[in-house]
């Protein structure tokens, strides 16, 4: 499974990467990006990701813009928003933009595992 992890905090990327590794994904099977611009470039160039895990608030291009940009070319790749934005309005906005699932920080490894399992099986 190829995963793209997008977050401006290097600590968060490592935390998410760690959970993903616990799920059995090898380190070389996931890529990291610190903002939407880098993520979009990786997505365009590789175009082989099975899941995109993205933060919302990031510099240059935020997570919501990234989701909309990806959805412009790919309607199927599962996208999970992992963010501190915990308002109902934000969740609805993200769902409308095309995310498949939404996780509010702080989250437990179990929650992420559950959501990823659901997406992969679904």
């Amino acid at each position, binding site marked *: 499974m190829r995963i793209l992890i997008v977050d401006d905090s*290097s*600590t968060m990327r*490592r*935390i998410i990467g760690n959970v993903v590794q616990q799920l059995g994904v090898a380190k070389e099977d996931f890529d990291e990006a610190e903002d939407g611009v880098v993520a979009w470039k990786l997505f365009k160039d590789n175009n082989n990701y099975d899941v995109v895990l993205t933060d919302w608030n990031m510099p240059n291009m935020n997570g919501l813009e990234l989701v909309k940009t990806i959805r412009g070319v790919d309607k199927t790749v599962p996208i999970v928003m992992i963010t501190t934005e915990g*308002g109902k309005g934000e969740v609805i906005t993200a*769902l409308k933009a095309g995310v498949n699932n939404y996780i*509010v920080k*702080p989250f437990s*490894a179990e929650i992420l595992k559950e959501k990823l399992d659901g997406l992969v099986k679904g």
Partner: protein
Amino acid sequence: MSMSQEEIEALMNGSIPDMPDMSEDLSEESIEDISIEDSNDDDDINDILAGIEGIVDDDVDTSMDEENFEDILASIDDITVDDIEDEESVETKNQSDKYPLPVENENKVVNQLNEVAADSEQKASQIFDVLSFILDENNEIQNYNKQMSEFIESQIELLDSLSTKFPNINIFTENKEEAKKLVETSKELSSKVDGENNKVFEAMELMQYHDINRQKIERVMAVIRKLNSYLNGIFEDDSNGPEVQVAKHISGDDHDTVDADDIESLINEFSEQ
């Protein structure tokens, strides 16, 4: 208000749950309870202190008069109360010189907050390195432990067949029992390392609060920036008029103003000269 994971799940499933009113959580009654408990605690502490050594605040002699104090100080180092007062006034002066701080890059609040956020990110990354190192080392320990356990298991099999073949030689049976104990120790070691790994994962999860707190700092920075822009706008003078010299002392000010008598006496003073 922030949504819980369950509420998000419900939202995903199409139903929007009623959001509870957080203001109910802090009722006046509960606040009163807290303050009553606090005052009880203070009483308890006084009772305990009085009960243990018979110490009551009133017993402490605080009646040292200024004269005695001055004598003691003078006898030690020839220091007088005036010296101390002088030092205090110098300290106060230094404080008043310090604030408000000059508008320099290092004193700008947003810059300082930015520095805190960046420094904290760097340190969090270093903490993560340490935790990752512990996880890697624990994996090594588990591998060594597994190798040892496999070897001991093979020795148990060997000793088992030897003790069956030579039932009169006790050492085989005794060593087999010892080896079985070692296998149990190895299992215990493995479970302890697993427990430690779980704690490390827990610590890694808790490190998400670093990111959350960084975003809280960024929110404060955004408020300060907006406030700065608003204040600049509201105080802006776009009349293009010349700058008027302002009065330094106006009747009604608290300090440095003169009344009619002061003026008279000043005039007289000057006329005498």
